[in-house]
C-alpha cells in the first residue's frame, strides 16, 4: 500500500516535469537464509526479516529520491533453506537484477561470486565478517559492506586501550568462528599495546540454550570457570556461536567488565544509536518494521543506499557504470556515523566507524582520539593497505 502511494506521488512529479519516458528501473536482489539463529538472550533473537528489513527501508529512501529523478528501485527477496544451493538462487536473481545483496556464509559468498563473475552482477556482502573474503579470498565483483572481524576487534581494542584497560583475559569458544574472533583480538592486542594475560577455551559440550532452572547452574559454573586468573582488567569473550559469552557479565570470579561477544560489544549499528541524525533513520525503520534496527539491517540498508547513491549520481541503470562509480575516488555514502564512508580500493571493503554498545546504549564510537593515520583514521581499524593479501582480479 505504501509502495503504491509512493508510486502515485512519483507519477505526479514525473508529470509536472514532463518526462515522457518511463522511469529508469533498478532491480536489487537480496539473498539470505530462511530461519534465525538461536541466541542465549531472548531479546537478542533476530527477527525473521533481519537484514531484509533494512534493504526494504533503503528501497523506500531510494524511491523518494528517485521520484525526483525518474528512477525506480525494486527489491527481489530470496531466502534459501539449509542445504539449498546459494548459486542456483543467485543465478536466478541475476537474470533480472544487476546487484545482489548477500547475507550468506563465507564459502557461499565465494561460490556465488565465482559463478556470477562473467555476468557482471555486482555483489554486496552484507552478512559475513570473515577477513579472508577481503584478503586471500577477495573477489573483484564483491563489495563488502559488513565490517570485518578485525575492524570490530580494533574498534573495541582502541577503546579499551584508551580506557587504560590493557590486561585482557581472553576466553574463546570452541567453534571455528569463535577461534577466528580470538585470532583478531590477539592481533588487536599486539597492534595497540594490550596484553593477553591468559587464554581459556570454553568447550561447547552441547546442551540446550534454554532450560527452566538454568540460572542456578550458570551462577555456579561461571565463577568457577573464571577463577584463578592472573590479574586482568577486562575479560574478552570470543563467542560468535552463542554458547557462553552472555552468561559472563556479573558472574566472573573477579569483579571485572566483560567485552567482545557480551558486555561491551563492537558493532556496525545499534538500535540505541541516535547521534549524527541517526534518530531519523531509527524512527523511519521502526515505523516501517515495528522493531528496532540491527547491525545486519544497517548493513543491508547501506548496501542498497550505495547503489541508490551511485544511480542518482550517474543517472544510469547500467551495472557496469554504477560499479565503476562506486569504485571511483569520488564515491562516498552517508550512513549516520558522523563522517562519510568510502571504499578501500584495494579490497572493496567499506570504511566505517565501529560503535561500541552495551546492549542498551552506545558507549563510544571508534576510531578513538589519538589513533592517527596518514590517509584516513578509519584505516586504523582492520587490515590496512600495506598488510593486505588481496589482489583484486
Amino acid at each position, binding site marked *: 500500500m505504501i509502495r503504491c502511494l509512493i508510486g502515485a*506521488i512519483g507519477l505526479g*512529479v514525473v508529470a*509536472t516535469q514532463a518526462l515522457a519516458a518511463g522511469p529508469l528501473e533498478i532491480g536489487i536482489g537480496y539473498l539470505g537464509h530462511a530461519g534465525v539463529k538461536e541466541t542465549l538472550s531472548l531479546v537478542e533473537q533476530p527477527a525473521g526479516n533481519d537484514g531484509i528489513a533494512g534493504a526494504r527501508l533503503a528501497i523506500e*529512501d531510494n524511491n*523518494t*529520491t528517485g521520484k*525526483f*529523478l525518474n528512477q525506480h528501485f525494486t527489491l527481489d527477496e530470496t531466502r534459501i533453506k539449509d542445504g539449498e544451493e546459494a548459486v542456483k538462487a543467485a543465478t536466478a536473481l541475476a537474470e533480472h537484477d544487476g546487484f545482489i545483496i548477500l547475507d550468506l556464509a563465507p564459502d557461499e559468498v565465494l561460490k556465488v561470486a565465482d559463478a556470477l563473475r562473467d555476468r557482471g552482477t555486482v555483489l554486496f556482502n552484507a552478512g559475513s565478517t570473515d577477513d579472508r573474503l577481503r584478503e586471500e579470498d577477495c573477489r573483484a565483483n564483491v563489495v563488502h559492506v559488513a565490517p570485518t572481524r578485525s575492524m570490530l576487534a580494533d574498534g573495541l581494542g582502541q577503546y579499551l586501550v584508551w580506557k587504560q584497560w590493557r590486561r585482557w583475559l581472553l576466553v574463546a569458544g570452541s567453534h571455528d568462528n569463535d577461534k577466528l574472533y580470538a585470532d583478531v583480538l590477539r592481533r588487536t592486542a599486539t597492534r595497540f599495546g594490550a596484553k593477553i594475560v591468559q587464554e581459556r577455551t570454553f568447550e561447547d559440550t552441547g546442551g540446550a540454550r534454554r532450560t527452566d532452572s538454568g540460572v542456578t547452574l550458570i551462577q555456579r559454573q561461571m565463577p568457577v570457570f573464571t577463577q584463578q586468573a592472573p590479574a586482568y582488567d577486562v575479560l574478552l569473550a570470543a563467542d560468535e556461536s552463542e554458547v557462553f559469552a552472555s552468561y559472563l557479565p556479573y558472574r566472573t570470579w573477579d569483579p571485572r567488565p566483560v567485552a567482545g561477544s557480551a558486555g561491551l560489544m563492537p558493532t556496525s549499528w545499534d538500535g540505541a544509536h541516535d547521534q549524527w*541524525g541517526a534518530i*531519523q*533513520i531509527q*524512527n*523511519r525503520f521502526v515505523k516501517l518494521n515495528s522493531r528496532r534496527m540491527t547491525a545486519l539491517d544497517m548493513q543491508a540498508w547501506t548496501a542498497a*543506499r550505495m547503489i541508490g*547513491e551511485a544511480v*542518482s*549520481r550517474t543517472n544510469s541503470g547500467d551495472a557496469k557504470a554504477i560499479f565503476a562509480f562506486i569504485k571511483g575516488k569520488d564515491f*562516498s*555514502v*552517508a550512513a549516520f556515523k*558522523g*563522517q*562519510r564512508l568510502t571504499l578501500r580500493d584495494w579490497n572493496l571493503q567499506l570504511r566505517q566507524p565501529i560503535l561500541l554498545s552495551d546492549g542498551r546504549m552506545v558507549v563510544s564510537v571508534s576510531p578513538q582520539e589519538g589513533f592517527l593515520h596518514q590517509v*584516513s*583514521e*578509519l584505516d586504523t581499524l582492520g587490515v590496512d593497505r600495506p598488510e593486505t593479501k588481496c589482489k583484486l582480479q
Partner: protein
Amino acid sequence: MWLRCLLSLGALWLTAAPASAYVAYVSNEKGNTVTVIDTDKWAVTATIKVGQRPRGIEFTRDGKFVMVAVGDDDTIQMIDTKTLQIVDTLPSGPDPELFTQDAAGKTLYVANENDNTVTVIDIAKRTRLGDIQVGVEPEGMMVSPDGKILICTSETTNMAHFIDTSTREVAANVLVDSRPRFAEFKHDGSELWVSSEIGGTVSIIDPVKHVVIGKVTFNIPGLRSEAIQPVGIGMTKDDKTAFVALGPANRVAVVDATTHAVTKYLLVGQRVWHMAFTPDEKYLMVTNGVSNDVSVIDVAAQKVLKSIQVGELPWGVTISP
C-alpha cells in the same frame, strides 16, 4: 568654541547610541534551554527553559517573538521577547528542525525531518496552511530574495528542492554532495549556496538554470578531510564575503563570494554549526556545540573576538532586528 561644542555633542550622541545594542538568542539542543545574550556587553542575561531538543531558532520580523523548533515535542514554541515567556506554539509537523519565513514575516516554512514534508504555516493566525512532499530528511530552508522560490535541502536524498511559493509545488531539483544541511542566497539572488556536511563542500547553484556552477572546497593542513563538515553559511549584505561553519573542523571559513575561494580559516570552538550577523553586520555569532559556547567574530577584521559560555550543545542563533 563651535568646534568644541560640536565635538562634545558628537561624543554625547555616540555614548547615547551604542554600536551594537542587540539581543541574541541561542538554542541549546541538549540543555532544552534558550540562552539570551546582550550583544553590547557580550554577556548572558537570561536562560529560558523551553521544550525538548530546541534547534532551529528565529526572530519574527517585528522582533516581538522568537520562534524555536522543539523537535521532540513536535512543535515550534514562541517566546515573547518582552517577558521571556513561552506564550504560544505553531502547528509544525513531526520533529521540526529548521524553518524560514518570507520577507513579510507572514508565512513560515518548516522542515519536518521525520515525514519528508515541509509544513507551511500562517504565523499571525498560528495555523497550518498545507504540506509539501520533499525528499528524505528535509533540513535546510531558505526563501529567495524575490520571495518566489523556497529552497529545501533533503539530507539523505542529497538534493536542493526548488519549490514555487505560489503553487507550493516542486519546480526543480538539483543534486548536491552528501547530506545537504543549509541553503543561503546571495542578496541579489544571483547564486544559491548549499552546504554538504558529509560531502565536505558548498555547492554554488545558478537559481535560474538549476545547475551547480561551482563548488567551494576546503583544505586545512593537518586536518583529515572527513572532519571538514560544512553546515551554516552567512553572506554579507554586499554579497562579497561568505562565512561557512565547518563543524568538527572547529573553524569558520572566510570565502571570497565572487571567486568562491577560501581566504582564511578562523579557529572557533568545537563542532561549529550555525551563525547569525548583528543587523549592523559588525559581528557574527557562531554556535560551538561540543564546547558549549558561542564565538563572536569581528566581521570587518575577520578575527575571533571572544567566546561566551551558553547551555548544553548550542545549535542555532538569532539576533534581534
